[in-house]
């Protein structure tokens, strides 16, 4: 019993502290000069969809620099992360290797975080399960190497924590271990949510995402990200948009995939999803498909996330900065 009370109290205190503190304020959309800013860099793939590590590093550096207004990727990373951080990088690997963040893109990000002084043992690339990481081509590693890489694999908090309409056990990586978080997603259509990019990626850190797919995942996606475990720590969203998918998601469907050849970064997690929505709708129009709203799956959670103050959801206020 005492354990329950302590954890709950701790979560509440943590939430209040983060919301009231400077860390929370720094990453919000409203008063932040970078709110609504999306940094975009080109990254081409060969005919097999593969990218060179050197090209990925250039693109990721440029996108993050553009997103943050820093002079370089290293300078941007130094603004976002400090040597004392434990950085969790959440990947979106449900679709398997063809439509998951590429290892080269992830490792480019890791290099920048390392350059900011974060030790290799405190950079954790993770997904819901180790199996998904393996399938996406990431090397599993719980010690050694330039970064750690493993699945949550059922390591959740023992008790659920509420945020708006959701009540979930969060991965302990997110609730307890990490002090800074990055969402690394892709640009793809989702059968129910409309868009699966940076925000929905966080469904992978709760134990019961299957409960929250009705009403186009609204307000649930926003509720997950609004939880202090994430809201208070989320520093960056990075999308591997080398290959994107405008229909038939969230699984990979080759016939609906298209070469976008972009890496996209933002300190504003809502703006980057609004950008992805715009890109997907544009591509859908080109293929004669109805917009996501007309297909009855508008990503409503974007507006809800904006309403929560997580960032800018109004597409007309998204500022694209091309690197």
């Amino acid at each position: 019993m005492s354990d329950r009370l302590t954890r709950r109290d701790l979560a509440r205190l943590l939430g209040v502290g983060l919301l009231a503190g400077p860390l929370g304020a720094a990453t919000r959309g409203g008063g932040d000069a970078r709110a609504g800013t999306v940094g975009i860099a080109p990254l081409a793939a060969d005919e097999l969809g593969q990218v060179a590590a050197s090209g990925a590093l250039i693109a990721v550096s440029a996108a993050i620099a553009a997103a943050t207004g820093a002079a370089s990727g290293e300078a941007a990373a130094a603004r976002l992360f400090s040597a004392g951080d434990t950085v969790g990088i959440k990947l979106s690997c449900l679709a398997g290797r063809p439509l998951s963040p590429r290892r080269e893109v992830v490792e480019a990000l890791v290099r920048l975080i390392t350059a900011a002084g974060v030790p290799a043992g405190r950079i954790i690339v993770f997904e819901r399960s180790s199996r998904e990481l393996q399938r996406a081509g990431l090397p599993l590693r719980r010690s050694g190497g330039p970064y750690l890489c493993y699945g949550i694999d059922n390591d959740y908090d023992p008790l659920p924590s509420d945020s708006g309409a959701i009540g979930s056990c969060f991965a302990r990586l997110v609730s307890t271990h990490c002090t800074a978080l990055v969402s690394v997603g892709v640009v793809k259509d989702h059968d129910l949510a409309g868009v699966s990019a940076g925000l929905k990626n966080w469904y992978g850190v709760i134990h019961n995402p299957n409960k929250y797919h009705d009403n186009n995942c609204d307000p649930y996606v926003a509720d997950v990200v609004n939880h202090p475990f994430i809201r208070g720590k989320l520093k960056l969203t990075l999308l591997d948009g080398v290959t994107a998918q405008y229909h038939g998601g969230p699984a990979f469907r080759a016939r609906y995939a298209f070469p976008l050849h972009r890496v996209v970064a933002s300190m504003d997690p809502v703006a980057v999803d609004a950008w992805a929505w715009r890109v997907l709708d544009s591509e859908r129009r080109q293929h004669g498909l109805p917009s996501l709203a007309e297909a009855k799956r508008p990503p409503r959670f974007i507006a809800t996330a904006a309403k929560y103050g997580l960032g800018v959801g109004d597409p007309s206020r998204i500022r694209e900065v091309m690197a």
Partner: protein
Amino acid sequence: MSEGLTRRRLVVLGAAGVASLAGPRGLAARSELEVGKPVSPDALPAREASWYKRLPERRVECQLCPRGCQVADAERGSCGVRENRGGTYYTLVYGLACTVHVDPIEKKPFFHVLPGKTALSYATAGCNVECKFCQNWEISQFRPEQVRSWWMPPKALVNLAQRLGTPLTAATYSEPVVFWEYVRDAAHAARSAGLRPTVVSNGYIQEKPLRDVLPLLTAYKVDLKSFRERFYKELVRGELKPVLKTLEVARAAGAWVEIVVLIVPTWNDSEAEARDLARWVKTNLGPDVPVHLTRFHPTYRLTDLPPTPVTKLERLWQVVRSEGLHFVYLGNVPGHPGENTVCPGCGATVIKRLGYRILDNRLKGDRCPDCNRKIPGVWS
């Protein structure tokens, strides 16, 4: 608190017990799986679901529960235990028991089914609703790969029941609707072995799968969580209407039905609601269907409420009885007279209980020993 911990411990111990009892000599339905042994989260046995239809673009529509999830490739339904793989829908929990335990049948609770007998009770992970007061959330609200489970296909389950001498089986604890194929085949195997299969459910199921399994069941208990849609919407993430339909179908099909209503303070504890519920039961199911009013204890996501005051339960007990229902019980109040079965004809106590124990069973066959009135139920 103690209940939560006890329950978890019980689940673990129960399953461990099964593992040791079943042993490697049990039935091995699949070469890679061994009866009674843990199943790796990375190797869940997938079996094509029985109630779904294929949709364009590799999507499927589940036809098991009223939610009717339309599920894209690589996604799961709301229950978390059914997955679309390339346009074919699979159950990931067939034969995958996360708990197996021997319980008194009174614990289900069935008060009119073989009093004093035991039921081999089993469950898998998953549920199709999300009650904020779920006592078994540590298995019901998780996916199968998140819960330790053991390979226990239907025949192995029945073999175990026979070895343990339990005349009944019970699909229970989490939500049997989500492992309905397993329930169906286990019930069939139990029948064939001369056992009595029962189900303890939320009743949130479509009519076709319900009718497919009902004839196999000895008894069917439904948690009627409230008589108000608001309660179902806000605390359960489900709907009332389909549950009422389930009760009507089950009763009309001749299944022995008992109803449990958990009384949650401030949510479903009004006399008006109790009266509406009692009237509906009497009109649509008849006065002989037992109704158990049980005491809430704070748990899961509803920890800011106190346990239901016993005086409140007693008042509702009076209200429901006053509407003409013959068998109204109080639950989670051990030693209360509301646990006893009283003859509606002469008022004599025919079965006296203390918690899950039978202190005295005076039934003569299926009749009151004092006035010879028939007491409905499954008594032999």
